[in-house]
């Protein structure tokens, strides 16, 4: 591209602006990795918790400890990713902040879980609807919006069933809310 081009017409100027904005727009990160990674993890934890409860293991909730190394890995990967990003869009910052806030909120809920009678599955599902829907709207990716709405509906459903059945609903919610959109996002080319 030349710096000085004599007689750059108005139309050519507009074409340059439009092309560059389009280039920058394609740079919105499509972080399907996190949807798949956390999706599988939470599905496994939910199904594991359900199974451990069924076989009468006392510390069935201990399965959620698998999320601790997952948090460490996620933070490490986010850090590495932010270093290798050649450009950062405004949307990247919004979605990033949204998911980090969500993570902090989940952590607080887990710490004080006893005070809400361990009704964590419904509360976390309803809360996860917010970043999922917003991510879907920002990426203009309808399956994520549908996934977020599914989290919200299944979250309410969880309040209506006994705590033993909640992990099963949680697993289904995450499959529809995170895993299916995650795989679709991976195969979706823009």
């Amino acid at each position, binding site marked *: 591209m030349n710096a000085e081009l004599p007689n750059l017409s108005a139309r050519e100027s507009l074409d340059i*602006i439009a092309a560059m904005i389009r280039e920058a727009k394609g740079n919105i990160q499509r972080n399907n990795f996190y949807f798949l990674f956390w999706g599988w993890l939470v599905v496994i934890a939910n199904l594991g918790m359900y199974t451990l409860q069924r076989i009468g293991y006392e510390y069935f909730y201990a399965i959620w400890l698998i999320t601790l190394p997952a948090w460490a890995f996620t933070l490490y990967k986010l850090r590495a990713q932010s270093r290798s990003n050649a450009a950062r869009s405004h949307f990247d910052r919004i979605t990033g902040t949204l998911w980090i806030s969500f993570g902090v909120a989940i952590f607080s809920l887990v710490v004080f879980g006893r005070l809400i009678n361990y009704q964590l599955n419904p509360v976390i599902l309803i809360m996860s609807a917010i970043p999922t829907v917003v991510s879907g709207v920002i990426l203009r990716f309808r399956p994520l919006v549908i996934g977020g709405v599914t989290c919200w509906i299944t979250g309410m459903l969880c309040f209506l069933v006994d705590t033993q059945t909640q992990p099963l609903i949680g697993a289904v919610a995450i499959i529809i809310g995170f895993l299916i959109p995650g795989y679709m996002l991976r195969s979706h080319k823009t």
Partner: protein
Amino acid sequence: MFKDLDPLLHSQLRLAVMSLLISVESAEFTFLRAKTNSTAGNLSVQLDKLAQAGYISIEKSFRGKRPLTTCKVKPAGIQAFEAYVSALKQYIDIPQNS
């Protein structure tokens, strides 16, 4: 009477850089070079011109041992870009076959 187009923006490469920076929060030198398909030397000169006019800020740092240049658009740059686009509209509105 038509408004004059900002000569600083009415150049292919500088306009491309400004259009990219308007769309993102910040961008590295390598990103700008790849998207505008320009040479490092030329891009560097044009970035300096934009920075001197107060349109963008250039931050030089290091990633490991390698130098890292990050650019951001400044409020004056946004204002100039908007003025340029609105001036451009007047030219576009001219009927083509008159």
